[in-house]
């Protein structure tokens, strides 16, 4: 029995390593070849940082980076405000359709992105004439951003003691000041975590951006795609590595914020 258990645990460990490798080996290859001196991305011929230097001179990449930052920043702000409002509203909702409503708020997370993209394009063209370009991409990214912020803030509100808000109101705080002085400080890690998540998702998004962008406007993923059409260069590897780094950093920050326990109306 003990032998079987040990063998099983060995297999389990192997399976874990395989899964981990499956996830990260492609990424590792990309990162490694971003430092390759060869002009061809699949050939290793010595270490260099020249591709990173080249990026800094690439006007197209830099302007796309700026666009991506504007879009992700805008989508983050819109998502944070609307998502927090939605989470607070859902918590107070006491009607019978509450579960359905909550599920509808989360839907953009599971709806296939291509469907959302087509829908948004039609919406922007036919219903709400938003200029196609940065405004339309920002709004489109806010759609799924709101969903993520709603989810994260709702989770934060699970442990929230509503009596704290009553106590504040009892002591003379207006609803707005209750929110600013008590509710928001306590759910802030959730809001920030959700907002950062919305930022990364927007920064990385390709499909929706591709559909709702206008002529002459490109975000970073769109530029990468058009560059890749002419072959994967080490420069692209370098760019992808940088994006990866930023995404990881923001993700880590978001996870750390959500785990942090400065807060919560835990009853003592």
């Amino acid at each position, binding site marked *: 029995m003990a032998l079987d258990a040990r063998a099983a645990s060995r297999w389990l460990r192997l399976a874990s390593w395989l899964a981990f490798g499956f996830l990260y080996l492609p990424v590792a290859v990309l990162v490694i070849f971003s430092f390759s001196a060869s002009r061809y991305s699949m050939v290793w011929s010595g270490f260099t940082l020249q591709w990173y230097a080249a990026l800094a001179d690439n006007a197209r990449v830099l302007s796309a980076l700026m666009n991506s930052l504007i879009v992700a920043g805008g989508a983050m702000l819109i998502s944070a405000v609307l998502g927090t409002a939605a989470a607070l509203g859902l918590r107070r909702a006491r009607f019978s359709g509450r579960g359905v409503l909550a599920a509808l708020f989360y839907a953009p997370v599971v709806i296939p992105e291509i469907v959302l993209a087509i829908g948004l394009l039609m919406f922007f063209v036919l219903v709400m004439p938003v200029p196609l370009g940065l405004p339309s991409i920002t709004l489109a990214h806010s759609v799924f951003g709101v969903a993520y912020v709603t989810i994260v803030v709702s989770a934060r509100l699970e442990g929230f003691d509503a009596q704290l808000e009553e*106590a504040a*109101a009892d*002591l003379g*705080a207006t609803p707005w000041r209750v929110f600013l*002085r008590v509710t928001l400080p*306590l759910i802030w890690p959730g809001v920030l975590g959700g907002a950062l998540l919305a930022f990364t998702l927007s920064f990385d998004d390709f499909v929706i951006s591709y559909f709702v962008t206008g002529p002459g406007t490109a975000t970073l993923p769109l530029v990468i795609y058009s560059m890749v059409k002419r072959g994967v260069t080490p420069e692209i590897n370098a760019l992808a590595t940088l994006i990866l780094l930023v995404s990881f950093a923001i993700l880590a920050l978001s996870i750390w914020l959500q785990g942090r326990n400065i807060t*919560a109306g835990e009853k*003592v």
Partner: protein
Amino acid sequence: MVRDVSLAIREGEFFSLLGPSGCGKTTLLRLLAGFESPTSGEILLAGSGVQDVPARRRDLNIVFQHYALFPHLSVARNVAFGLEMQKVAGDEIQRRVADALALVRLQGLGARMPRELSGGQQQRVALARALITRPAVLLLDEPLGALDLKLRREMQSELKALQRRLGTTFVYVTHDQEEALAMSDRVGVMHDGQLLQVGAPHEIYDRPVNRFVAAFIGESNFLAAEVTGYDDRDLIVRSAGESLRVRGERIAIGRRVTLALRPERLRIMPAGDSVAVNLLDGRLRECVYLGTGWRCEIELVDGSVMRASLPPQDSGVLSVGSRVMLTFAPPDVAILESDS
């Protein structure tokens, strides 16, 4: 759920709402605080209707059962909250926070965070936070419920002393009858969303209006009885085969009533002794010594069991199994409506 409650709380009194959990006492408190709205009826504060006034503008503050201290604010900032909302000047806030912390004996702890304090200390912070704006009424929702017994006793007398010193009206919700009796000027007993009886602790204890109050506040023995007559002072009733004299207002002959007898008002006498009125035959079933006295169970001839508390020196008659007589004075009985 609260139904049909009509209650006037006097200025400056310590009023307790007492009842088992789920009786509506907390709901009533939340109605007063403004967290719930009545479907009908009026709530007056100092003579003016407040049922449409939001909680923040009612001149009363609440101390919650679990304190509800703001976990992200220091003790001093918690206490200052009400004054900050009133936009009181900074130096005055500082002075009054220091005063309030001194009032609850927490000097010097202003910089701590709530989670760094013990339960009793958190309770005091909640008290200081609620009192600092000098509300006309302080509402307390089982504020000592989470404390251990010893600390609870201490806080009881401290709260009572504080209330006396400040002269603030306290409305205190509790399910602990001892606490309610010990602290209050008046007590309102609630059950099933209704206010059953309001009165001073001794009135509630000695003259309960019904069987629920008699059983919930302290302990009572109940005897079914029928009114057979009366004279100048007493009613004559028939119960357990005996004719008994009880003090009370006249009730029509033939009415069925319930007699409520407190264990400590009963006395046990050896069988055959017949110097007193109100004698009930019985057999001593059990007697235990509690230090402060004896607790005995006496089985009456009709099979019902009465509990009696006797002072420690009354051990002469206490041989288990022997025949004894129970006796009580006519004024020591509460006459209740018979259960329908």
